């Protein structure tokens, strides 16, 4: 008998409803369900991305028992021993160096909101530090910072279903055909309904292909282009004067800042034709319902927060808020990265975006949690290498559901950091590259094996449900953390995830009315949802009242800054990191799905232009060596006429062709997000292809062995 379990897809922030098909306690298939955002559709990851649950051990093996490193080797131990050992080590480090010597992460992937709530509570109430952060830092961190500054909420102001009803879609540094096929579907539908589509991207992406206007800007010039847009709106008096007068502040400074960025000046920096800049801004200003959607092409630069604020300013100047089908949408990449931000897995806010530096709020949490709480903002994830290697300030790292060695820039430096630390805890579902440096490994249940709530990219709380029992001796993430807290002398226990959720919403006014019951009845609840009788909020800023301190939207512009590492004679090409539709994040999940890994597998690819390929003598499909100032790797050349000469692209999914061995650690000064989208590299042809192929196969085999493939029972 096939049993169907309704849940939410674990890939990307689209928040698609799906049924897992279960037979004899095993997941045997997936089918789309009728959700708010997906309306009975799934992309290929949704359809074919579930079988990692059955542990096929293609890339890496499921963790089944807790492990402690003894004489240099991870050995399986009992849960009692693992919890006791971890609690004692953390307590000792806290006593010796103080609570701020310990760093923890949230997890934007499988665990869900409840586990993230418990994790940040553990770091704040049990350890006594605000050193909690997660992969939003390397992703939409600039959106949270930038939009909070401009509008008051660090999230999409609109909803995914509204996209298809916009008159004009302005898509900036965002490639949903690859990252969110189900969001791309709304854009395709909008075009069918007659919307104008404008795409700004250095690469001719699928949406650039179907766009009315494609602005092929040079990588790393976003701010100059966004400033020029503002310049046109003001110089040509296209902006909404009433709106700017009543709902917006900072106009005079803004006007002054963008003055110099005439379309002609911007053209000299960005390569985008001045006439095109004028044309698209006239269209944008004239449109009744214009919506901006953006992604990593905005956020993964050392100048990212500024660009986010600049884009928000365009929507503010044209009055595109407070209605359906308008606004600005940072479309979140991971299934629950909105949720881990919502839950306060950030160094500056408690759950519900409540500031840790506000004494009144701190007092509320102190009362609820029964302890004194730290008043200082914690460390950012991306500062950890520097804080460990240069300042020697952080001694222990509790890494929960993340794989920084694969996902963070400059992997060699990340490895060095982990090696130098006194104590590293990895809590995950799969063996991964980071766990190779762990002192303790705590195995957790996966998506499909536990209950909870995910937040979709458009602020939608939706229930995930347990479909099957987990393999081996593993526990839900929240339970592991509560056992650790109890062992450290802060008793924590919950009956189920709903009890955690209810504690969280009682402390978070924005989420107070979003009960499990309401999610059950409505299929989901979009925050803000302040009271039990409130249905939730599809779009923000009704009545053009923003969530900023004085209720006004804040305009912002500043000087463009060039990316930090420029190509030179030794490293003549630029590298930008991107995504591939059939894989997800660090690939522990999709790399262990049989059909998806067959579609595309190690060592991964580097996209290069036909011109660069021919001048280097490289053929399509050949293995090539890629070298930066930080590392060297091998990947397969993918020659594409959609790539400009001088530019190259790699995805961060692959473990052999791991682009983060190459990327730099330059950070945005505010959000501390790394410049994944720009570094300098050199490509080398490999004359002996047969030997190179053999070496890749050997490397894959040894990697799989390190990942315990074949060691346990399948």
């Amino acid at each position, binding site marked *: 008998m096939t049993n169907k379990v309704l849940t939410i897809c674990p890939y990307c922030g689209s928040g698609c409803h799906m049924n897992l098909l279960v037979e004899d306690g095993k997941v*045997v298939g997936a089918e789309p369900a009728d959700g708010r955002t997906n309306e009975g559709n799934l992309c290929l990851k949704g359809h074919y991305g579930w079988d990692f649950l059955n542990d096929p051990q293609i890339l890496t093996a499921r963790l089944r028992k807790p492990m402690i490193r003894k004489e240099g080797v991870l050995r399986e131990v009992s849960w009692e021993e693992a919890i006791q050992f971890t609690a004692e080590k953390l307590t000792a480090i806290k006593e010796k160096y103080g609570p701020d010597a310990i760093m923890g992460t949230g997890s934007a992937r499988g665990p869900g909101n409840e586990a993230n709530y418990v994790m940040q509570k553990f770091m704040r109430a049990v350890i006594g530090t605000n050193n909690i952060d997660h992969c939003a830092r390397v992703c939409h961190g600039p959106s949270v910072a930038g939009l909070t500054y401009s509008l008051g909420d660090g999230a999409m102001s609109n909803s995914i279903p509204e996209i298809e009803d916009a008159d004009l879609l302005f898509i900036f540094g965002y490639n949903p055909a690859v990252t969110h*096929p189900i969001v791309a579907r709304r854009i*395709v539908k909008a075009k069918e309904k007659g919307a104008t589509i404008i795409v700004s991207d250095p690469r001719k992406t699928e949406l650039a292909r179907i766009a009315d206007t494609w602005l092929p800007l040079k990588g790393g010039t976003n701010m100059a282009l966004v400033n020029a847009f503002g310049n046109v709106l003001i110089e040509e008096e296209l902006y909404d004067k009433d709106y700017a007068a009543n709902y917006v502040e900072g106009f005079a400074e803004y006007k002054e800042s963008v003055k110099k960025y005439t379309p002609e000046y911007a053209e000299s920096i960005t390569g985008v034709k001045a006439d095109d800049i004028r044309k698209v801004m006239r269209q944008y200003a004239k449109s009744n319902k214009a919506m901006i959607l953006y992604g990593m092409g905005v956020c993964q630069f050392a100048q990212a927060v500024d660009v986010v604020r600049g884009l928000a300013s365009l929507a503010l100047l044209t009055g595109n808020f407070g209605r359906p089908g308008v606004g600005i949408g940072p479309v979140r990449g991971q299934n629950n990265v909105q949720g881990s931000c919502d839950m306060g897995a950030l160094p500056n806010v408690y759950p519900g975006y409540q500031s840790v530096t506000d004494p009144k709020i701190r007092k509320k949490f102190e009362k609820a949690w029964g302890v004194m709480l730290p008043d200082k903002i914690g460390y950012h994830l991306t500062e950890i290498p520097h804080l460990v290697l240069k300042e020697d300030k952080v001694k222990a790292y509790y890494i929960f559901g993340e794989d920084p060695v694969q996902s963070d820039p400059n992997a060699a430096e990340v490895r060095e950091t982990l090696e130098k630390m006194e104590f590293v805890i990895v809590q995950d579902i799969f063996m991964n590259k980071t766990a190779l440096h762990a002192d303790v490994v705590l195995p957790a249940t996966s998506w499909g094996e536990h209950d909870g709530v995910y937040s979709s990219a458009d602020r939608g709380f939706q229930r995930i449900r347990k479909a099957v029992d987990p393999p081996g001796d593993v526990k839900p993430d929240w339970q592991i953390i509560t056992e650790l807290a109890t062992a450290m002398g802060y008793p924590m226990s919950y009956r189920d995830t709903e009890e955690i959720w209810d504690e969280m919403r009682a402390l978070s006014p924005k989420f107070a009315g979003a009960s499990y019951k309401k999610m059950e009845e409505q299929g989901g609840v979009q925050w803000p949802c302040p009271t039990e009788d409130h249905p939730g909020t599809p779009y923000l800023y009704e009545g053009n009242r923003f969530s900023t301190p004085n209720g006004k939207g804040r305009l912002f512009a500043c000087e463009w800054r060039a990316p930090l590492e420029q190509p030179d004679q030794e490293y003549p090409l630029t590298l930008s990191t991107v995504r591939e539709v059939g894989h997800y994040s660090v690939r522990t999940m999709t790399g262990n799905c049989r059909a998806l890994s067959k579609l595309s597998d190690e060592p991964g690819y580097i996209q290069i232009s036909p011109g660069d390929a021919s001048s280097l003598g490289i053929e399509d499909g050949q293995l090539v060596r890629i070298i930066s100032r930080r590392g060297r790797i091998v990947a397969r050349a993918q020659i594409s006429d959609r790539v400009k000469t001088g530019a190259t692209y790699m995805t961060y999914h692959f473990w052999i062709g791991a682009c983060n061995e190459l990327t730099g650690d330059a950070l945005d000064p505010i959000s501390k997000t790394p410049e994944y989208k720009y570094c300098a590299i050199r490509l080398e042809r490999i004359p002996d292809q047969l030997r190179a192929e053999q070496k890749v196969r050997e490397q894959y085999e040894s990697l799989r062995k390190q990942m315990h493939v074949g060691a346990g029972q399948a």
Partner: protein
Amino acid sequence: MKKERPNSFVIAEAGKCIGCKACELACFAVHNRDNGVAAAVGTVTVPVIPRLHVIRTDSFTMPVQCRHCENAPCAGVCPVQAIVQEEGAITINEDRCIGCKACAMACPFGAISLYKAYSSGQEHKQPHLRERLDGRLERKTRVIAYKCDLCHDITHSGNIASGESAAAAVNNSGSPSEGGGEPVPACVSVCPEQALMLVSPSLGESRSRKAAGLRL
């Protein structure tokens, strides 16, 4: 009496396709249930062999697949009569195919590709032909022509040319999903952008004639 109809065929709209290859994977999954692709556990040993191919050029992206030509040139050049018309589709008898590539060359759409043959998850070795590998003579794997068969005996229900949204889609066990409506191939039902459709023309009729007339 049954009304005589030309063969149906699957076609894609380049304006909707985002190149995600969900169609390729769905095609691969439903055609390889015997090769372990549908099973929930165990390793898939066969490579992805789709019967439609997403092509990407500078200016367009879309899957290309067999048009099930009424006067199929592939069948005309096949020296062993492995290509026949049956039940509204042009199909290749894969057991009979000798891998001569004539059909692939004759097809004006490039809808036919040659790949290794598999059965029960293993390469299908031929009984007689040997090839020299590392100095040893080994039985050579069969190579055969693959193309769209309109999911012949494995069809699915869901969105068809009428443009209804996909209420149902293929599941991995390859069984037809619920939802009613005319059966459609796996690629059509799985496409998240509804970029693919099954076109079932009638002799003497044209879908676009009326629309063109109205525009005059």
